[in-house]
């Protein structure tokens, strides 16, 4: 079920009143669990079986790890959880990628291997919930978390619908304790929740989806477009993916607030970053912190000398790239970010002070960071090496476009609105509309944005969230 569809609004309109009326914590959690499975099964009911399997495995493994002090047994249990979760993820997401790469390599070396490509449907959001359940098992193994002995609470932690398919990837220590209590939103949560949903929908639909139409058409038929049009598409993709994902995260947080749950902030105006290290503190925060805690630090982080630090950084980012999808382009994307981060670490000599407020004097640094990030989006969106080559040849073999003025105007419009919203958010917070003292002004702004967004949803087919495919 897409957040940017009417059916989701109807779903909420049914779920919320029933949820509020339920008297007990256990009833509320059971009901939310059922609603989450319905939400997920709306795509394809078979996906629910994988979710259930992952839930059962990690629930029991968590308990067994906790109940034993035997180091070997604990390790064995951890590896079992890793094998099951990563096995499912690997099969559904990476089987074809590795098998195709292997076939290409062998055939390239003169061998003759037939295609073993399988028609596998990638379950929506599998990378997100796999990482979420893995963090639970890791934390229990590291004795940072007491496992829950209530399977309903755990199942809800894994499948909680607002963040199930595209995060934020919540840590058990943050989300689970909230589920132990009777969920009941405060007045502030209701206000903030509704505001976040409206602002998120506006971003996702009016900025992300509309920019996405141009991006999809151009990337889908690269041979038909001129240099400037392709460059515009790359830059617009930077806007699209940000509006799409940050919009989704806002709706997720807003919906969770309406249920009395606080989810972590996933985006902090990343395009206002002054350097690449800061970018990764502000972009997809739940993933970058997951990778830092469970991969980078596990590899030794910066404790094993300078050279090892850079290698660890690179490995983390390469795997982070691969997490996004089974394609060498994602690996290149991750590799580029790893290189940027290493270079920044090297030149800044480890000084990474972070001022959350971006100022006017930071504009050159912000622009440079944006250009570097935008360059990596090219690999991210192209998805195949052939398309990447086509883009580079279009850029280097320059062809003027008779529509350059239109593309410039379109780009400027998206940039002005995106950056304006980010600057306001950076100064006044994610629910900046609520900073107005007058309720009439708040309502006026939110109702207008909501109505405009709904009209657009009504007249066009809703585009799925980009990160669903991951």
């Amino acid at each position, binding site marked *: 079920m897409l957040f940017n569809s009417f059916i989701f609004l109807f779903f909420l309109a049914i779920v919320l009143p029933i949820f509020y009326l339920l008297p007990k914590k256990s009833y509320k959690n059971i009901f939310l669990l059922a609603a989450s499975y319905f939400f997920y099964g709306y795509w394809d009911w078979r996906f629910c079986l994988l979710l259930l399997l992952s839930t059962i495995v990690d629930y029991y493994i968590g308990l067994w790890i906790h109940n034993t002090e035997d180091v070997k047994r604990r390790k064995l249990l951890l590896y079992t959880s890793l094998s099951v979760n990563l096995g499912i993820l690997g099969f559904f997401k990476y089987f074809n990628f590795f098998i195709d790469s292997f076939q290409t390599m062998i055939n390239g070396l003169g061998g003759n291997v037939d295609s073993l490509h399988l028609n596998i449907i990638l379950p929506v959001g599998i990378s997100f919930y796999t990482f979420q359940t893995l963090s639970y098992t890791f934390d229990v193994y590291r004795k940072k978390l007491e496992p829950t002995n209530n399977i309903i609470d755990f199942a809800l932690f894994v499948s909680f619908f607002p963040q199930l398919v595209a995060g934020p990837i919540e840590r058990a220590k943050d989300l689970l304790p909230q589920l132990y209590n009777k969920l009941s939103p405060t007045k502030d949560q209701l206000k903030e929740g509704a505001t976040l949903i409206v602002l998120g929908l506006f971003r996702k639909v009016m900025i992300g989806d509309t920019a996405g139409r141009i991006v999809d058409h151009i990337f889908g038929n690269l041979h038909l477009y001129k240099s400037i049009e392709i460059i515009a598409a790359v830059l617009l993709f930077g806007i699209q993916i940000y509006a799409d994902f940050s919009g989704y995260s806002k709706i997720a947080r807003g919906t969770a607030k309406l249920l009395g749950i606080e989810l972590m902030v996933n985006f902090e105006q990343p395009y206002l970053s002054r350097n690449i290290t800061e970018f990764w503190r502000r972009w997809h925060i739940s993933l970058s912190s997951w990778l830092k805690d469970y991969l980078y630090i596990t590899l030794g982080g910066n404790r094993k000398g300078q050279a090892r630090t850079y290698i660890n950084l690179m490995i983390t980012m390469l795997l982070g790239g691969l997490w996004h999808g089974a394609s060498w382009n994602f690996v290149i994307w991750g590799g580029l970010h790893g290189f940027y981060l290493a270079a920044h670490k090297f030149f800044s000599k480890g000084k990474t002070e972070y001022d959350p407020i971006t100022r006017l004097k930071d504009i050159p640094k912000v622009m440079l960071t944006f250009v570097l990030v935008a360059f990596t989006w090219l690999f991210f969106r192209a998805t195949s090496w052939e398309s990447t080559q086509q883009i580079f040849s279009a850029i280097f073999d320059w062809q003027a476009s008779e529509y350059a003025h*239109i593309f410039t105007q379109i780009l400027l419009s998206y940039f002005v*609105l995106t950056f304006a919203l980010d600057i306001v958010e950076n100064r006044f917070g994610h629910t900046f509309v609520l900073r107005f003292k007058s309720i*009439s002004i708040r309502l006026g702004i939110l109702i207008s944005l909501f109505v405009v967004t709904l009209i657009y949803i009504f007249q066009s087919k809703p585009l799925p969230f980009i990160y669903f495919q991951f």
Partner: protein
Amino acid sequence: MIKTLKHITLFFISVASTLLVCELFVDNAKIVEASLGKYYEDIGKGLPNNQETVLFTEGFGIFKTNNSRFAGREVDTNTSKHINIALIGDSFVESFQVFQRNYFGNIIEQNLSERFKEYTFEVQNFGRANFNLNHNYAYQRVFVDNFDPELIIYFVSNGDLHLEELTPLYPYTKEVDGKLVTSVEFNKDEVERYRLVQNILSKSILLNMLKNAKHATKKHPIPSILFGKVYDWFAPPIRIEIPDTNYIPLPLANKILNNLDSNVIIVNRDYTPLYKPFVDEVNRLGITYWDTSVFVDSLYKQGKDPYYWKVTKTNGHWNQEMHKDIGELLSKKLIQKIEQDSVSILKPRF
């Protein structure tokens, strides 16, 4: 009381300010385009002149209308060795789903210019959405003929031969005392209503968005838009109407054929052959007739669906590949035709 008034005022000011920001963004980012219709005394509902438009349909189109009110560059009236080829038809000819440079008429123009280097060619796009044969003929007489085309190509599908219904405010043809008469006389109230709506729509791009939303309900029932898959679970299965292959077009169709000039070519742009009685009449009158349905069939056999748009995953008008393919096919046919009839087609204009 004053407090309430203050609240209401603030509410409306914030609504107006927010909508203004949205309006500016939607307009400049080309998210929605202003309505493309304009009423003219001489041709009825036509395209606005000198307007550049970005349109998202099943495809992504950019095109500009000229001063003469059709998509394309200005008409050349100063060159002696200049050939105008007018394309008449419905939205398939209009080709608003692709960039102007990729539309099949442009491909034809390039190929002809390359073949007959001493001449300049202009393939003029007179396609209009919802035109049938009746409108096509009337449009030729009231508008297209003004540009003195050396060749006129009618793109016709079986749907265009159903002349029982006309689209309001489009030029039309009627039979008066056994003669064909073209007309742009419409019900005055209808004209005024149309002008009023266009006037209102021209004030705000958000209103155009609202209009598009209303149009969306014509394609999909409202419950389907609102309830998505849930609607599909309960909706009755869609009945596919099989067209009657024995359909005989109204006598007006034959009358139109009889009144066509000798420089007219009829092209079947459909994926099925045109109704037999119509084709028989075309052949009887010796009108040049090109049937592309066989070509479309061969594309299907090659695994190409000329109506499928892979980006938006929808079926619709000719996709970009088809524009190229049909452009190449018609270029070949036109080159042959011009070579055969070079004396009449390539004669100097003055």
